[in-house]
């Protein structure tokens, strides 16, 4: 067997995997009920089964229909952008807005094509002032500004 369309091969696998997961999980843990009184498992099992079948069709097609290879993943922006967002969320409560925004701006900017310390620092200061003025002052969102440990 030769994979002719790698994109469909992986997409098919992805759909089959998640379809089966939803269906099996629903059957294992929730009540099925009847068509008249559907239990919590009924609809997810139906949909999960559908997704698995659709995935199978896409998967099977990848061996016969000519397709294009999966383009390379840009790992650097993928990782840095995702990490930057997560850092922002988890640093907000313990360290405050000032530190969280710094983490987000510097880490995400490192995922771009060029990283110049001066430029990114200026951008950070501008965004920090803007966030403070609009969200903390203007919309009065309850964000801490500074680390909890400092006692502000």
């Amino acid at each position, binding site marked *: 067997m030769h994979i002719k369309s790698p994109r469909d091969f992986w997409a098919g696998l992805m759909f089959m995997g998640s379809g089966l997961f939803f269906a099996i999980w629903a059957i294992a843990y929730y009540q099925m009920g009847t068509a008249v009184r559907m239990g919590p498992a009924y609809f997810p099992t139906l949909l999960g089964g559908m997704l698995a079948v659709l995935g199978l069709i896409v998967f099977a097609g990848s061996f016969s229909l000519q397709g294009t290879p999966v383009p390379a993943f840009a790992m650097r922006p993928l990782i840095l952008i995702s990490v930057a967002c997560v850092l922002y969320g988890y640093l907000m409560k313990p360290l405050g807005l000032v530190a969280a925004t710094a983490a987000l*701006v510097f880490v995400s900017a490192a995922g771009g094509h060029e990283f110049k310390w001066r430029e990114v620092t200026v951008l950070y200061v501008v*965004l920090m002032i803007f966030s403070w003025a609009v969200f903390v002052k203007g919309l009065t969102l309850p964000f801490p500004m500074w680390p909890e440990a400092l006692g502000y």
Partner: protein
Amino acid sequence: MEILHNLVMGFGVAISPIHLFYCFIGVLLGTLIGVLPGVGPVATIAMLLPITFNLSPTAALIMLAGIYYGAQYGGSTTAILVNIPGESSSVVTCLDGYQMARQGRAGPALAIAALGSFFAGCVATVLIAVAAPPLAEVALKFGPAEYFSLMVFGLVAATVLAHGSLIKAIAMVVWGLLFGLIGTDVNSGVLRFTFGIPELSDGIGFVIVAMGMFGTAEIISNLELKDKREVFTSKVTHLYPTKADLKAAWAPVLRGTALGSMLGILPGGGALLSSFGAYSLEKKISKNPEKFGKGAIEGVAAPESANNAGAQTSFIPMLTLGIPSNAVMALMIGALMIQGIAPGPQVMNEKPELFWGLIASMWVGNAMLVILNLPLIGMWVKLLTVPYRYLFPSILVFMSIGVFSLSNNPFDVLIMAIFGVLGYICVKLECEPAPMILGFILGPLMEENLRRAMLLSRGDPTVFVTKPISAGFMLASLILLVIVALPAIRKKREEVFVEEG
């Protein structure tokens, strides 16, 4: 005359200072993101949704609507001057608009795009006012079976009009429906697919999914490309089109408006499909089609009118049926839900000031947009010189603040990042994220209506084909699927999207 009475009431709402202000903010932001390539209306509206908590429902919707149709104006500016579509719906405007700019006719191209859009906006506003009430009237009679079939039809239409493989698009819809089911089951109170994580018991926030799939995923994709821009700033000298230009453009504007209005109403339609359809139509009926792609003013006038008309008429199914026809409308429904309003035909009767105020605000907003786009064009052109490396960290800051502020929980930001990665993978595998978002918002609704319909019919699934309206939707869905699956049409559809991309 009831419509007239209602419109007058709507204008009363729309021109109150507070609503004028939010309308202005909306169209201003819309133009801004329209001009900036790589920032779309979906991500922007998702970013602003948390802020609308503090607004009245009417102000919130007026502002968010302004962003969508405003983006259609701004998108043309970038397309004409830089040959980069600011919005995906401006892709075809690049073909002739940029050629006009290279011939030193950037001014007339911009003016025709703005005036055509304004005309289309006016027509679409009237169309919504006329068509929405009778549609809502019909929709009020819908039972669960009809609603379920309508949603099936909407989702099928959305997949048919999506790019690429039909089966993958359907799979994405089903996947979205499944993601939508995560959380507490309303009928039994059982926690489904929450894996013991308390944050998941209310389900995954729609805004969070949309921001991940469209926001962070898009930024990551954009960062793969080098940014190179060539701006024709100095060339925008005379703005006003000549008599010959106007003579050539009026008919395409009319046709673009008509086609755009129709395609906008279709589920899965909206600005993108409209602009493309209008361009193909003009090329087909033109006496000298060889002019197209070399700076034909018809090639700017028609798609730009059509995308604005389509952007506005896509509100019709959302306002009257409570069914989103595209991802932007799904966000509008999200905005209504945040405000505690159940979207559907009852909105028009229960919240007339919201309904008619929104419609009237579209006309007001369109008038503002002409002023924003023609005399102030220089300002927008300057904005184009802002490099993407300043933009994307700023966008990330707004998205993260927005998501975090939903419930002050870092877990939401984590979910956004996860859906960002998933969205990026989907793009790489040529799976469109838009159908998934529609499925996501319709998941719980579909299950609820399916359950009710089956309960009422005592478990008889034929209820969906024995009730006439429901049968009609099911038949229409089937016909759509069969048509698209036919080899001849499939080939044509692929051609269409290849040309578009």
